[in-house]
């Protein structure tokens, strides 16, 4: 049987960009830091546009460690939400009109985040990409790398663990948290 004709590119792009825009622009703190996301297919790159308000050491000057850490955390959360959203977006299960009206999926919650500061953050734009190391039903582990001028010279990296929002069919949203078994969540957490 011949495959169905692919949708026109503009329709696909508009749907994907609309979903990403709705996801990112709903969060005031993302705007506060001046973070936007660049999309190529399903791959996202966070861009923290330089502003003097991000400076932590005015004498060097250098970006604030807190702003850097926050940028990596925002990139991890948006990338994780985007990965969940993507599946529903491509299968057609997601209603874009509702998303754009502000009916957003619940966001993952940060359990813990460790940031390594590898170089002083320069007073210019910063970029970050997240790699989802593991995404379970309940927990996810994400690694984020941030760079500025040169992709091969990262200025910061972070590893974070996140509690995933309950999905439809998961039962009560407020079921008590199970302790994480040694070696990570069990096989039921696929």
């Amino acid at each position: 049987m011949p495959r169905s004709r692919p949708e026109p590119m503009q329709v696909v792009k508009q749907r994907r960009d609309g979903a990403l825009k709705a996801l990112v622009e709903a969060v005031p703190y993302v705007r506060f830091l001046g973070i936007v996301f660049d999309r190529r297919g399903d791959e996202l790159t966070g861009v923290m546009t330089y502003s003097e308000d991000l400076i932590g050491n005015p004498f060097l000057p250098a970006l604030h460690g807190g702003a850097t850490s926050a940028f990596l955390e925002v990139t991890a959360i948006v990338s994780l939400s985007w990965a969940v959203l993507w599946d529903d977006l491509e299968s057609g299960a997601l209603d874009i009109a509702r998303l754009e009206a502000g009916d957003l999926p619940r966001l993952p919650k940060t359990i813990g985040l460790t940031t390594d500061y590898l170089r002083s953050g320069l007073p210019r734009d910063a970029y970050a990409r997240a790699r989802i190391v593991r995404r379970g039903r309940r927990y996810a582990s994400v690694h984020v790398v941030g760079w500025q001028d040169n992709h091969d010279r990262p200025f910061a990296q972070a590893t974070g663990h996140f509690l995933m929002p309950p999905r439809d069919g998961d039962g009560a949203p407020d079921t008590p948290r199970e302790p994480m078994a040694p070696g990570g969540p069990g096989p039921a957490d696929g």
Partner: protein
Amino acid sequence: MVDRATLARQFIEAIPHARALGLELVEIAEGRAVISMPYDEKLIGDPETRVIHGGAVSALLDTCCGAAVMSHPTQPDATATIDLRIDYMRAATPGQTLVATAECYHVTRSVAFVRATAVDGRTDVPVASAAASFTAERR
């Protein structure tokens, strides 16, 4: 002789990002710092619950840890974060001011070790805790 605490206070108030977050230095002395962050809608991370973003809590804790290092009796001239680990125990209550307390508990020739917690005054359980190491730069 200029008071170390006064220097540290001026240093924090001169940090643009700390100003943008609305941080206020409450107390600083001998390797211990207390900094507050009033609730502000621009810091919201979850539009549905109006809870502030974890990143803002990180920035508060990072600033507080740095301030504790600068006020340590060993008198470092400058400091920068080497690593920072944050655990988020619970969501910060919307509308509540967060107060971070950091203690610089050990300093070597080149590294300072710090721990910190942030509370929102609602329960005894902190909103978040931090463990960090900083550079301790000397001329």
